[in-house]
């Protein structure tokens, strides 16, 4: 599964993108897996209310299922316009 990061999430994790093998069934389970990896992940995911998530390039919630998902993105609230 491709995991992509943007803005300060990307900076905290230290990379824009990575491929991981995971059995996580929901975004929340994926976040738990990532948090357990290293301090920088724990830090980046410490406050989920400050994060947004997209599964296969569609905004969704942290309890969204991951069946068949190819790409999950984590980023702060958007500031376009």
């Amino acid at each position, binding site marked *: 599964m491709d995991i*992509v990061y*943007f*803005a*300060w999430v990307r900076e905290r994790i230290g990379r824009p993108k990575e491929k991981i093998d995971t059995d996580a069934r929901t975004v929340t389970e994926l976040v738990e897996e990532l948090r357990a990896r290293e301090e920088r992940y724990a830090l980046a995911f410490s406050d989920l209310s400050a994060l947004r998530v*997209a599964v296969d*390039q*569609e*905004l969704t919630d942290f309890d969204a299922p991951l069946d068949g998902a190819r790409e999950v*993105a984590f*980023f*702060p*609230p*958007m*500031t*376009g*316009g």
Partner: protein
Amino acid sequence: MQDAPFDLGAEAAAFAAGRKDLGAVVTFTGVVRDNAAGTLQAMQIEHYPGMTEKALTKIAEEAAARWSLGDVLVIHRYGDLTPGELIMMVATAARHRKDAFEAAEYLMDYLKSRAPFWKREITTTGESSWVAAKDEDEDALKRW
């Protein structure tokens, strides 16, 4: 969605030009505003290639479904911009002004908070900070 600058005058003039069935054209243009101290060197705009196109298309389609519009245009830049440069524009054309205004405001409210762009400010004094999302921008979505 583009890295290159765009020309507001040319876009506005070309938009809905020659249409005799549309009485009302609204444009909104976002400009890089300097900070209070006048020390903004650059506004960097990061985006999520792939998702950005989908999100902008979805927002524009939603507007076209909710209001009676003859035409819709959305341009959004990414990359490094300087104060006074144009960040983005939306344009709407409709038979009546109410539709054109409401659709343009809707597009802006959704672009602000639902399109995957993130702004970072770099100052001449070497500071760099991500622009924080505003509660009022999130609240603005509630009216639609």
